[in-house]
Each structure stands twice: as structure tokens, then as C-alpha cells.
């Protein structure tokens, strides 16, 4: 049987390697893929630390959704990073000092699983002891998230809701301009509502969008 420490060291070494590879990579597609691998390695490491709930989230969000979103962004922008304009010495110095400060900060952190650490000794009696009696569910993480810290979770849900709303408001209205749009603008015919993505203009824009999607599908099918 392999020791947990060995696996931890291996995973952390791979994490460092992936991070260095991402920084040195000029092709953004490859960098995004490597970021997904980075998240997956991070998730595996969290699993070793007995935090399956966090590992689960990291695997689903970090390796899954963020990768897809980053790829979607690349499809709209560019796939190669620009060559750096100036020498990297100042950023390198800032990063090194910050990193050293963070490592220094970990020196007085308690050891993993230390029963006397603040996280394990406060509040007393701990949620681990109370959950069984007060909530009757085995997963203490869920009990803390949904019940003891229900306000925080409501706040987080509202944050996600706000993020979704922000993306919809920012990106849905202002789409990249097609030749038709330009032509209409020359005619002086684009109302402000249509631009903002509200009112009847938005529906028309959506219909056009679905239509063009289908068109693209057909083109894909015929070219294959």
C-alpha cells in the first residue's frame, strides 16, 4: 500500500509542474486544458485531505465548467498569448516576495488534523457532535452549509444569481455586429431598446440567433 504522504507529494509536485507549464505556454487552448488538469489535481489532493465535498466542487467547477467557459471565451477572442513587452524582473520580484510571505504565514498553522487547532476546538460543543442530535443527517458539511450557516449559503446563492444576471445583461444585449446590423444602422433604424436587449427587438434578435445556429448546424452536417 502506498503511503498517503507519497501521493500527496506526487500530486503537489504535479500541481507545481502544471502551473509552470501554464505560465510558459503561449498557446491559450493548451493553457486552458492544463488549467483543467490543474483543477483535477487540486481536487484529488483535497480528497486526500478528507474534504470530499470541496474536492467535488473543485472537480465540477474548476475542471468542468470553467474550462468550457474559458474555451468559449477563446472562441470569441484569440488563441495565442502576446509576447511579453517588457522584462519579467519586476513581476517576478513581486510574486517571489508574496509567495515567500505566504509560505512564512503557513509556519504557525496547526498540523492537518490537529485536535487542538482553533478549527477543531471552537465552537464547543462542535458541529460534529451537535449535528447527529439536532439535524439527524450524517453529512456534517451539508448540515453546516444548509442549516448552521444557512444565511451564508443564501448569500452565496444570491452571488451566483447576481453573476448570472450580470453576464446576461452585459453580453446578451451587445452582440457582435453582423453586416445586417451595420446596414440597419446606416438607415438610422436601431432603437436603443433593441440595443439593450429589452422589448420586442430582443426577441427578434434571439430568433435570428437561433436561426443562424440552425444554419450553422446544417452547414456542419453538409460539410461532414
Amino acid at each position: 500500500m502506498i503511503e498517503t504522504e507519497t501521493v500527496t507529494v506526487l500530486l503537489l509536485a504535479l500541481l507545481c509542474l502544471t502551473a509552470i507549464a501554464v505560465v510558459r505556454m503561449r498557446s491559450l487552448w493548451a493553457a486552458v486544458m492544463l488549467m483543467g488538469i490543474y483543477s483535477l489535481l487540486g481536487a484529488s489532493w483535497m480528497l486526500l485531505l478528507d474534504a470530499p465535498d470541496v474536492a467535488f466542487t473543485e472537480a465540477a467547477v474548476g475542471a468542468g465548467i470553467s474550462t468550457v467557459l474559458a474555451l468559449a471565451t477563446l472562441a470569441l477572442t484569440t488563441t495565442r498569448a502576446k509576447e511579453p513587452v517588457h522584462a519579467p524582473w519586476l513581476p517576478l520580484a513581486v510574486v517571489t516576495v508574496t509567495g515567500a510571505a505566504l509560505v512564512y504565514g503557513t509556519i504557525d498553522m496547526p498540523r492537518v488534523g490537529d485536535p487542538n487547532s482553533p478549527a477543531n476546538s471552537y465552537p464547543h460543543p462542535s458541529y460534529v457532535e451537535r449535528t447527529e442530535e439536532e439535524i439527524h443527517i450524517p453529512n456534517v458539511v451539508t448540515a453546516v452549509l444548509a442549516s448552521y450557516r444557512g444565511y451564508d449559503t443564501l448569500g452565496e446563492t444570491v452571488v451566483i444569481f447576481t453573476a448570472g444576471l450580470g453576464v446576461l445583461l452585459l453580453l446578451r444585449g451587445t452582440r457582435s455586429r453582423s453586416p445586417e446590423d451595420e446596414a440597419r444602422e446606416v438607415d438610422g433604424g436601431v432603437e436603443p431598446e433593441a440595443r439593450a436587449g429589452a422589448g420586442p427587438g430582443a426577441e427578434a434578435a434571439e430568433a435570428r440567433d437561433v436561426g443562424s445556429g440552425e444554419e450553422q448546424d446544417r452547414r456542419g452536417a453538409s460539410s461532414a
Partner: protein
Amino acid sequence: MTGQTILRVVSKLLLPYILLFALYVQFHGDYGPGGGFQAGVIFAAGFVLYALIYGLAAVRRLAPPRLVEVVLSIGVLIFAGTGVATMLLGGKFLEYGVLVPEHPAEGQHYGILVIEFGVGVTVAAVMIAIFSTFAGRGRA
């Protein structure tokens, strides 16, 4: 990617299991790892896979943007509404114990199930909305 037979068939086989797994993670979160957040993301991942293979238009037919926008806010309403319901029943905001007065622990259990469902609904809808907005942007 509409001409790729293997991808189409394999993803079609996988999709129901991805959605089922999301539901399992959603409603089994009290017993094992998981909960609304993870379940919502996995559920949305099913839609993302569908969009990647069958095109964004197929997903928009399945989950029209207007519907997704409504669902996105319903999740938050379920969560906050549970809090209001417990207040109306005489407890504090989000004090699930009052849902089943004779057995507070059971009330906690119900409350957690309901609010986790709210979280899952919002997260899934937001992820689908963000993805389809990003993916649909370059096409018009």
C-alpha cells in the same frame, strides 16, 4: 460537430446518466458528499455537453433563454421563501425546526432538502445561461 457519429451516440448514451447523477448528488447530499451546488453544476454540464455535440440551437429549443432566466430566479426564491415560511410559522428566518414542530430534527431535514434544491436550481440555470450567452455571442 454534428457529423461525428461516435460522439453523438456516446454522448446520447451518457447524457441520461449525467443528469441522473446530478439528481443523486442533489438529493443524497445529506448522506454523502454533494449538495445543491455540485448537483447544479453537473446538471448544467449535461446541457453543455448536449450543446457541444448537437449545437446551441438544440439546447435553446430544450431550455429557451426566457425559461432559463425565470428558473434562475426561482431557485433564489425557493431558498429565501423557505426562510420566510419558517418566519410565518413562528420561527426565525431559516429556522427549519419549526417546519415539523413535534420533531425539530425532521424539520431541519426537510428544510435542508428544500433549500439545497433551490441552490441546485439557481446554479444549474445560471451555468446554462452563462454558457449559452458566451457560446451564442460570436454567431449573430
